[in-house]
C-alpha cells in the first residue's frame, strides 16, 4: 500500500502558532484522533511510535492530528514560558480544527503518559465530548513532577553529589523561581499545575481504551490503574484495558518500537 502523506502546517494560536501534522484518513473517516504528546524529553523519545500509530490509524480510516504544544517541539514559544492553561487551550484549538473537518465521526483524545492527564483536563474544562485512548497514562501529576525533578537529582548523583538537590529544587519552585531540569526550564506555575493534575473521568462518558506496556509477558495492570479504571467505569465509560508486552519506548536509551501496542490498539478499535 502506498503510504499516505502527512500534511504539516502551523495552527494559529494566541500567542504564536503550533506545529501540527495531519494524517488524512484513507477513505471516509471512521473517527478523528488528536494525539497529545508526553512531557519534556519523553516527547522526543516517543516521536517514532506516535508517527507509526498515526500512519496506521490513517490507513485504517481515521483522521489523525498531532500537535506540538506551546513551547514544545516545533511550535513557537519557549518551554520555560509554557503554561498548563495554554496547553489546555491548544487542545481545544486542535479539537476545533479536527471537528471542523470531521464533524460527524467520534472524536478521540489519544494521550501518551502526561498527554492523558492533559486530555482529561481539557475535556473537563472545555466540555469536549470525546473517547479516550491512553498509552501508559500518568495517573497523578504529583508523581510525574517528582519523577521529572529526579532527573536533576540523578544528574547530580552521576556528578557525585545528590544530597539536598530535591529539597533545593522544591524550595526554589515554592519561592517562584524557574528551575533547570535536564535542559528544560520548568516554571513554578507549570510545576504547580502539573502537581495538582489527576486522571479523573470527565463529565461526558464515552469509550476508554487503556494500554500499558511491560517487558514481562504475564504482567497485569497495577492496583493503582485498576482503581483509576474503576472510577471511570463508575462514571459511565465503556472500558477496554490491557497490558501488552513491549519496551517502555518513551524512556528507553535507544528509540524502541512497540509493534504489539500498535496492533492491540487497532484491534480494539475495529
Amino acid at each position, binding site marked *: 500500500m502506498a503510504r499516505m502523506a502527512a500534511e504539516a502546517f502551523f495552527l494559529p494560536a494566541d500567542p504564536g502558532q503550533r506545529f501540527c501534522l495531519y494524517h488524512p484518513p484513507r477513505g471516509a473517516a471512521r473517527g478523528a484522533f488528536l494525539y497529545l504528546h508526553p512531557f519534556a524529553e519523553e516527547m522526543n523519545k516517543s516521536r517514532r511510535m506516535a508517527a507509526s500509530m498515526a500512519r496506521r490509524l490513517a490507513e485504517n480510516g481515521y483522521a489523525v492530528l498531532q500537535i506540538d504544544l506551546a513551547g514544545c517541539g516545533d511550535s513557537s514559544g519557549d518551554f520555560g514560558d509554557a503554561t498548563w492553561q495554554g496547553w489546555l487551550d491548544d487542545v481545544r484549538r486542535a479539537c476545533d480544527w479536527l471537528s471542523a473537518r470531521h464533524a460527524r465521526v467520534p472524536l478521540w483524545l489519544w494521550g501518551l503518559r502526561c498527554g492523558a492527564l492533559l486530555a482529561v483536563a481539557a475535556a473537563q474544562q472545555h466540555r469536549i465530548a470525546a473517547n479516550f485512548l491512553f498509552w501508559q497514562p500518568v495517573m497523578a501529576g504529583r508523581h510525574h513532577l517528582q519523577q521529572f525533578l529526579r532527573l536533576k537529582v540523578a544528574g547530580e*548523583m552521576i556528578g557525585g553529589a545528590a544530597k539536598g538537590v*530535591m529539597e533545593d529544587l522544591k524550595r526554589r519552585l515554592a519561592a517562584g523561581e524557574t528551575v533547570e531540569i535536564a535542559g528544560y526550564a520548568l516554571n513554578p506555575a507549570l510545576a504547580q499545575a502539573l502537581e495538582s493534575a489527576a486522571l479523573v473521568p470527565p463529565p461526558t462518558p464515552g469509550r476508554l481504551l487503556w494500554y500499558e506496556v511491560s517487558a514481562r509477558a504475564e504482567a497485569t495492570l497495577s492496583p493503582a490503574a485498576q482503581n483509576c479504571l474503576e472510577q471511570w467505569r463508575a462514571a459511565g465509560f465503556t472500558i477496554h484495558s490491557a497490558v501488552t508486552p513491549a*519496551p517502555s519506548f518513551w524512556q*528507553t*536509551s535507544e528509540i524502541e518500537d512497540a509493534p504489539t501496542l500498535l496492533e492491540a490498539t487497532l484491534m480494539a478499535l475495529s
Partner: protein
Amino acid sequence: MNTQREVLALLDEILSLKGRSVAMTRDTPLLGALPELDSMAVVAVITALEERFGFSVEDDEIDGSAFVTVGALVDFVEAKLAG
C-alpha cells in the same frame, strides 16, 4: 524470586542493552562504565524498580553508591524489600 535476574532484565530493557545483560555479574560496573546510564535512564531504572518491586525510593536515598555495580544495585533492592 531471583532479584538479580529481575534487576538485570529491567536494566536490559531500559538501557536498550539488547541482551548484553546476560553477561553481567555482580561485579559488573554500572555508573561511569555504561554510557547508556544517563540521568534519564537512572530515573527510569528507579521508577521501574519501584513499580516492579512495589517499594518507594525516597529522594535522599538516590545515591551513587547503589549504582556502582550490578551487585550494589541488587543489594539496594534487597535492602528495600527487607524494609
